[in-house]
């Protein structure tokens, strides 16, 4: 008679599984020990780096940018948590979070005038004015501001970054600080209005090749949102965009 697998075989299999599981826990201990050692070593290295270069990070926008890019290339976000190594030991956190707070304040102060749409250039100008006189307070770059704004998305206030052109020029990037979306049509109108801060239906028809109805519809939506203002006193109605007004030199 053929021998069939019996109780003995099942029992043996169970014993094997138990042993393997035991092994797994053992492997785990060793692995965690290694990770702990590595973390300690890394922390020490970071402390050394910080003591040597902390000021460089604070003062030099190019160095900061390099740092940020290197971090993202390896899948690390130094701004994710204020309890992270980068924040605690290197102080990058405070630098960017302070910018974030100031961005919110500037946007809140100007949204009545520009419908919650501000150019990166104007934003930076206002931020620099609001900050202290020390060099490192003045030396913030567009890159710094954009990174801080990207972190603000999680707070649900509708911060979004709109590029009017493919360049990174500060006047070609708009920051929207209220919820709601600008669709592609709205963005097209903004693009043609940017240079002179105003446009008209005729200009829109000519440059965008739209019909009357579409032009009027889109411009009405922009007016309703407070982004565009109507000037009825000109012979043909013109529409002005405070977002593109250049900051006044003697503005108080």
């Amino acid at each position: 008679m053929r021998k069939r697998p019996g109780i003995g075989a099942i029992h043996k299999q169970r014993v094997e599984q138990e042993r393997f599981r035991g092994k797994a826990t053992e492997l785990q201990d060793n692995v965690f020990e290694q990770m702990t050692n590595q973390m300690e070593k890394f922390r020490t290295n970071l402390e050394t780096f910080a003591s040597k270069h902390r000021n460089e990070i604070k003062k030099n926008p190019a160095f900061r940018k390099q740092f940020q890019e290197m971090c993202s290339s390896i899948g690390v976000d130094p701004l994710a948590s204020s309890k992270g190594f980068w924040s605690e030991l290197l102080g990058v956190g405070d630098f960017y979070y302070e910018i974030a707070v100031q961005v919110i304040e500037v946007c809140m102060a100007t949204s009545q005038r520009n419908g919650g749409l501000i150019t990166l250039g104007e934003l930076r100008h206002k931020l620099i004015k609001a900050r202290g006189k020390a060099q490192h307070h003045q030396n913030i770059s567009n890159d710094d501001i954009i990174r801080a704004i990207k972190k603000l998305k999680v707070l649900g206030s509708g911060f979004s970054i709109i590029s009017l052109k493919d360049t990174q020029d500060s006047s070609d990037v708009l920051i929207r600080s209220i919820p709601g979306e600008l669709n592609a049509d709205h963005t097209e109108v903004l693009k043609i209005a940017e240079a002179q801060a105003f446009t008209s239906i005729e200009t829109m028809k000519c440059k965008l090749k739209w019909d009357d109805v579409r032009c009027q519809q889109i411009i009405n939506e922009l007016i309703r949102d407070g982004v565009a203002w109507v000037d009825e006193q000109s012979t043909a109605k013109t529409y002005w965009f405070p977002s593109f007004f250049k900051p006044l030199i003697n503005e108080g």
Partner: protein
Amino acid sequence: MDRLYFKDKNDCSKEITSYSHTTWKGIRLYDGDSKTEYRSETAYLTPSRLYFSSNDRPAMNMVLDLKCIVLVEEEEGSILRSSKIILHLLPHVSEQHSKPYTRSSASFIKLAFSNGGLSNFKICIQKPLLERAWEKHTESSSTSHSVAFQDMKNLIDMAKDMVQLASVMSSKIKDRHGDISDDETVKFKSYLLSLGIEDPVTRNACSSSNMFCQHLAKEITTFLLTPISDSGGFMSLSDAYCRVNRARGFELLSPEDFFQACNYMEQLNLPLTCRKFESGVLVLQLQSETNSQLEKDTESLLQARRKLTAFEVSQELGITIILAAECLYTMERKGVLCRDDTVRGLVFYHNEFSSRT
């Protein structure tokens, strides 16, 4: 196995004689879990490399740069299998050398010590991995900027290894759900947070074990309870964020930390809670505040004025425009209000249609 490459024995001899004090005989190499035909007569360990002499190519050594090693493990053997050392390696990078294996699908190799020396190897390899001598050979440059840049590069390289290590561990945790202790998972999560590594494990960072998050939630509530009560029982999250950070002055909170802490308030039964409107707007509101109070106030305002804009509501009730708008939208959805949407702006009226049918 595709991380090993061939090097002429003559080129290796100087490093080996200067630095290698222990040798191992008869190591068998495994590509992942598969045995290869390589059985090294002698293996040498230096501060930067592991050399294997091979019988089939007597003039060459096989070399593994130690900087490729992410993690060292021991695999315990059984009656049928010997114990082995597992070396987890960084992914393949295209290099110019000639290699025993051009492509391998495994991210680790194993070493079997048929002539013994495994425990000794395990001890000996830890030192060079901690010291990372391969990072120290760069010349110090004259300008401080290049020193700073080089230091930064070294630091980031080390962080890169940590990320790789974390990813190895993350997949182990996923593979062995029941066998991981809570302690170890908590510790691992905290490592990921410290490094700023994005991982599904850390996404809901706030939990009963995260004391920082809990502490924050309570601190924020204590600080904002009065201001929020004074401004109609609601405050937008970004407004709250500004106030809290302004008050702190330094050791500012990241938006993510703030967000996590606010989301945790309800679980802790705190008097404030975080709420999301349909538009995506987030607010902190008093637990006791149902919308009814704000809506009642808006309703009375409407009675007095017949029509309302968000701006008017925000002025009269002392809340932000966004919040005022949300309140009006909510009332509209309930059928209490009707909108009149024109170029002049968005105005709300009492919904006469429903009350007159």
